[in-house]
């Protein structure tokens, strides 16, 4: 497991940031987020907490050559549960990927709270992401081999069908060609016969001249 940590500050009040958090998407820099849905939301007036479960839909962020890992799915999903405590002024969001989670899991925790130094005008943002890969190299290789065999089969089938159509087309030309060849051969034969008989005649004349003929 690897851990990613980050702390940022926003020069806005926590109230403003926490409200804007619901409108974070779409934004110009996060074009991979294509959907945000509220699956469940509960308000506890006694504790002053609001708990929300959301589904974040992203365009598949993985490179095309790795698409075989997810079976050609073009979307990935993240589930997020957030708790807002209006008395403590904290917004805590926990999220985990739903797609590919057998291979790689990213469990992220984000906390927005008023900056202790200037609580009215600044908000502190802490982010921790725990990244765990479950797939062994062996599993990845198996997956790659399965995919390759499948792809090879598909291409082989395509190859057979393609060559079949070529064979079918050429067949007609081939028979046409064979007919033409036969005609040509016949013509050549005829011509050869003509020439040969001409030669024979001439040879006969010469023989007569030189007395070779008995």
């Amino acid at each position, binding site marked *: 497991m690897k851990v990613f940590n980050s702390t940022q500050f926003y020069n806005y009040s926590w109230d403003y940031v926490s409200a804007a958090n619901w*409108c974070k998407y779409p934004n110009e820099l996060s074009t991979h987020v294509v959907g945000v849905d509220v699956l469940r939301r509960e308000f506890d007036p006694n504790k002053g907490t609001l708990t929300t479960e959301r*589904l974040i839909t992203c365009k598949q962020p993985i490179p095309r050559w790795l698409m075989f890992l997810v079976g050609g799915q073009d*979307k990935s999903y993240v*589930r997020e549960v957030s708790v807002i405590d209006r008395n403590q002024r904290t917004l805590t969001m*926990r999220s985990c990927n739903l797609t590919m989670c057998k291979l790689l899991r990213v469990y992220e925790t984000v906390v927005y709270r008023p900056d202790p130094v200037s609580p009215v005008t600044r908000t502190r943002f802490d982010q921790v992401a725990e990244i765990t890969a479950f797939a062994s190299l062996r599993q990845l290789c198996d997956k790659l081999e399965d995919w390759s065999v499948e792809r090879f089969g598909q291409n082989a089938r395509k190859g057979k069908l393609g060559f079949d159509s070529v064979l079918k087309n050429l067949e007609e030309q081939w028979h046409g060609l064979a007919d033409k060849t036969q005609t040509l051969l016949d013509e050549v034969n005829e011509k050869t016969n003509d020439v040969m008989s001409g030669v024979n005649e001439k040879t006969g004349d010469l023989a007569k001249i030189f007395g070779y003929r008995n």
Partner: protein
Amino acid sequence: MGNLMSTSFAPECTDLKQKYDACFNYWYTEKFLKGKSVYNECEDLWADYKECIDIHLQKQGIKPMLDEARKEAPFENGGIPVDKSNEK
């Protein structure tokens, strides 16, 4: 706050979602944050929207993945994974 509103994973539900979001965003800023609210308003709009997404979560095969994740990190637990809260 921002003119653009996010869409639903299911385009069929985007209208219902945006109606709900508009209601919620107002409630959040004007009631929740100010401590003026004693109940979760906008529930009716959410029920319509939820009905729509439930159908599509099923259709698009997202439901099983979601159920699995819910077992691992329950809503009631604030999304904290069960194995982690046991460690504490």
